[in-house]
């Protein structure tokens, strides 16, 4: 009897332990998670943690000192250049390990390993657009370069050196919560990060949606809704710049007009997991002629999804070859946006289309051969092995044609109901020594060095801003841009022969660029690079109003100081509303309005056109315009269930400003009545007012509250407690302060090319990726207020400076 009781008790103990150690019954292994010795309490980083220490690590060649300042920004000083990358890898892992591995795995289509079968479709998408294939091609090219290979290897060793030092209780919080362990880092993961970046910044395409739009709207209406050049374009390359005219331009293949533009078939496709089309940025450089000091100023604020941990990690790297400061991407070596003792550099997205789909005809269901240039060609096959947590593995065979991976076919047709196969041609798949650009930029001393450096960069197309202490300012729009005939790449193309293939690339030296222009400044904000004077066809997704706001201010400014730049970078003036408001007010019939519509209208009338946090009028305006735009376009675009691309933000406004009451899309074609501009302005206002009333009753009419800027954790809505919601911040789409709900200026930087260099910056996050750390989100309030931190560009001899808070010494 006593033995039986003992056995029952022992069994109960074991059962309880199993219950608390697994996810079988409870959603989480609560015992393991809450154990103060092993679980999440270990991630509660004491407020007074010291980051100082002495480490002796295998793989280092010499001594490295890391001086952390009070914001936990490391100032790395290495005796040997290659050790700087080792320590960068170590620090990235020390502060951001989970994030860097998660992003590499997401890019490679390996999320099912972590979160289970709900990610299978996502993983297949990532694999079928060929991101790992692209990373392998890039890595092969980078590893041919001895210097890059040494740098990549050192970075990888640094990351692994940290991973190997971890015990279960030291693991970052997310590993504990999701229940998995980090694996070894390798150079492929570094290459994968470059492809994550490429996908974010050039992965947006609308070939299928445009194909549908063309079919649904006809060519005439299509061109009206998707114009090549906006009326109000203020291009990156100042108007009036002369471009070299090429000897010949590509011409469309014979019959393209009937086969391509008037292609009768429709495709049924709905894009998913597409990068946000508002990924963009501002950058500008001011010549010394327009600054108070006489020295150039360079500014950059890249607009990306705002996440915690932040995509950026700030640091300084100094070694015998160079001394550079700026932000880095946890996952790759080098300083990505920043400055050194001689130059400053930054980026905005070009928005240019470098990605096209071609229709492929397979011989049979085996997909082993496809028709190309009048013969059956063998397709390569890549077997994608997807491991799925808690389930059987999934095998996915992806065929590769001469164009690239066949993303869509009958095995991946849930979105594509026409049963056809489409192969992807994307510059991202081409081999390139892409990281060499940053390797050289970090070391660059002048314009020529910068120019040499950027040639290594093939994709995504970037506006690369430059300023030097020599006094030069410059910008190149750089990438390998396909050489296209007019309209090529707007729509899915026939892939049955070579006639629709890209005719090579635009010669690098003919990429849009400008050096020390007459106007005394250069700016880019994702607008079209050039006006019609540029000889090549350059389709893309472009911004119109932010550049107008920036250029207008820069033209008017003189004696510019960094303080002026702070005000400019955080400016909330709404140029779009300046153009649109008179139109709305002209056609609104006030006599038909009641309260509270009248008071909403009054707010708009009295508005200073600024999307400041407390502005109720901004909320009213934005809602009204969205409602109007939808009234104009919805009937035309949604005639069928076919997914269709949405015209850019400027299209309806410019159409109405140009054609006023005659604008061809005003009438609602679904009703027998012929609607007028006045009808739709009034109806859309009343519709908007319903939503506004609701916001008002919830006390959310103020712009910042309506917009509710939220910085999500990378796990998005799965990790709301790790997010920061309700950040009081103005700005918005088309505004210099481009902060939207969860998207916006991810790093604001101002560099004044004085000696010593004067620089200011901030990003909405913190240096630590640990949600249990004081340094996880400590910059957010500063960022939201539009304030900056002065950057300490530490120089030799400053080791004893009071700004050094902790010192971490590395030796072999």
């Amino acid at each position: 009897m006593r033995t039986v009781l003992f056995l029952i008790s022992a069994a109960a103990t074991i059962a309880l332990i199993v219950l608390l150690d697994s996810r079988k019954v409870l959603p989480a292994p609560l015992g393991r998670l809450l154990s103060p010795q092993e679980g999440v309490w270990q991630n509660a980083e004491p407020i007074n943690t010291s980051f100082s220490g002495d480490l002796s690590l295998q793989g280092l060649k010499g001594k490295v000192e890391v001086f952390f300042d009070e914001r936990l920004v490391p100032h790395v000083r290495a005796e040997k250049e290659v050790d700087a990358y080792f320590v960068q890898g170590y620090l990235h892992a020390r502060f951001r390990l989970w994030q860097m591995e998660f992003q590499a795995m997401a890019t490679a289509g390996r999320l099912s390993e972590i979160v289970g079968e709900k990610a299978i479709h996502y993983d297949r998408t990532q694999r079928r657009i060929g991101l790992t294939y692209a990373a392998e091609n890039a890595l092969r090219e980078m590893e041919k370069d001895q210097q890059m290979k040494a740098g990549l290897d050192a970075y990888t060793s640094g990351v692994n050196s940290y991973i190997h030092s971890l015990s279960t209780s030291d693991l970052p919080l997310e590993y504990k919560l999701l229940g998995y362990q980090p694996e070894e880092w390798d150079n492929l993961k570094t290459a994968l990060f470059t492809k994550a970046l490429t996908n974010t910044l050039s992965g947006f395409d609308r070939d299928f949606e445009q194909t549908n739009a063309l079919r649904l709207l006809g060519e005439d209406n299509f061109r009206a809704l998707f114009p090549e050049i906006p009326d109000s374009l203020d291009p990156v390359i100042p108007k009036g710049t002369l471009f070299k005219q090429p000897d010949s331009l590509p011409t469309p293949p014979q019959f393209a007009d009937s086969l391509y533009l008037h292609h009768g078939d429709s495709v049924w496709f709905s894009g998913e997991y597409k990068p946000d089309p508002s990924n963009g940025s501002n950058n500008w450089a001011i010549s010394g002629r327009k600054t108070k000091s006489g020295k150039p100023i360079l500014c950059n604020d890249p607009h990306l999804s705002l996440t915690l941990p932040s995509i950026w990690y700030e640091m300084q790297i100094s070694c015998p070859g160079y001394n550079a400061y700026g932000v880095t991407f946890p996952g790759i070596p080098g300083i990505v946006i920043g400055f050194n003792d001689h130059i400053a550099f930054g980026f905005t997205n070009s928005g240019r289309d470098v990605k096209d789909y071609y229709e492929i005809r397979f011989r049979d269901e085996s997909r082993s051969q496809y028709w190309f240039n009048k013969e059956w060609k063998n397709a390569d096959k890549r077997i994608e092995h997807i491991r799925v947590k808690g389930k059987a593995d999934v095998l996915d065979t992806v065929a590769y044609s001469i164009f690239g991976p066949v993303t869509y076919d009958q095995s991946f047709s849930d979105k594509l109901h026409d049963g056809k196969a489409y192969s992807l041609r994307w510059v991202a798949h081409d081999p390139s020594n892409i990281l060499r650009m940053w390797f050289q930029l970090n070391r660059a001393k002048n314009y020529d060095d910068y120019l040499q450096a950027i040639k290594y960069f093939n994709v995504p197309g970037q506006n690369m801003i430059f300023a030097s202490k020599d006094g030069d300012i410059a910008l190149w729009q750089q990438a390998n841009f396909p050489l296209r005939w007019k309209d090529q790449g707007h729509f899915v193309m026939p892939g049955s022969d070579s006639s629709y293939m890209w005719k090579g690339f635009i010669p690098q030296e003919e990429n849009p660029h400008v050096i020390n222009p007459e106007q005394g400044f250069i700016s880019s904000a994702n607008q079209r690079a050039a006006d019609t004077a540029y000889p090549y066809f350059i389709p893309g997704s472009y911004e119109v109003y932010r550049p107008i706001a920036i250029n207008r201010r820069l033209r008017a400014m003189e004696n510019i100081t960094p303080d002026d730049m702070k005000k400019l970078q955080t400016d909330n003036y709404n140029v779009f509303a300046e153009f649109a408001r008179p139109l709305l007010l002209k056609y609104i019939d006030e006599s038909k309005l009641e309260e509270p519509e009248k008071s909403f209208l009054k707010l708009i009338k009295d508005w200073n056109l600024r999307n400041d946090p407390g502005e109720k009028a901004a909320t009213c305006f934005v809602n009204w315009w969205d409602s109007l735009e939808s009234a104009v376009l919805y009937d035309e675009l949604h005639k069928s269930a076919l997914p269709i691309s949405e015209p850019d933000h400027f299209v309806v406004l410019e159409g109405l400003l140009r054609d006023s009451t005659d604008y061809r899309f005003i009438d609602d074609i679904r009703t027998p009545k012929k609607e007028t501009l006045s009808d739709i302005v009034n109806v859309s206002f009343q519709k908007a007012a319903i939503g506004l009333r609701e916001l008002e009753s919830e006390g959310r009419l103020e712009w910042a509250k309506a917009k509710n800027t939220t910085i999500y954790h990378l796990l998005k809505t799965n990790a709301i407690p790790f997010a920061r919601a309700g950040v009081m911040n103005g700005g918005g789409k088309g505004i210099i302060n481009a902060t939207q709900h969860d998207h916006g200026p991810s790093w604001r930087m101002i560099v004044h090319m004085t000696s010593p260099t004067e620089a200011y910056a901030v990003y909405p996050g913190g240096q630590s990726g640990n949600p249990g750390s004081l340094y996880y989100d400590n910059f957010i309030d500063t960022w939201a207020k539009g304030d900056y931190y002065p950057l300490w560009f530490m120089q030799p001899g400053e080791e004893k400076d009071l700004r050094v808070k902790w010192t971490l010494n590395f030796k072999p």
Partner: protein
Amino acid sequence: MKFLVSIFLTAVLAYSLGLYMPWWSIALAACAVSVMLYQSPGFSALTGFLGIFLFWCIMSWIRSKANQDILAHRISLFILKKDEPGLLIMVTGLLGGLTGALGALTGSLARRAFFPLNKH
């Protein structure tokens, strides 16, 4: 006295084992103490509970205090769906305590089943 000593020993042994073993070694610690220092099954279970409850509560409270509850705010929202750092510490203690109680009970029953002569 034995009661208090047992509680203290359970906590100390659990902490020591935890340095080298997974979290569930708290059950082993509680079990070992109640085999060594025999008490009735009920008292043993209470001892095991209190030993681990206090150990886990105090340790998580100390860590949380040093962290100004930054982590506890976030994790309590995750696990308890409410912002209650104190409650998270209590839940931590309860789960540990329960495991300790069962471990100690098993130890006491083992002692009674296999070494009845040594009964005090």
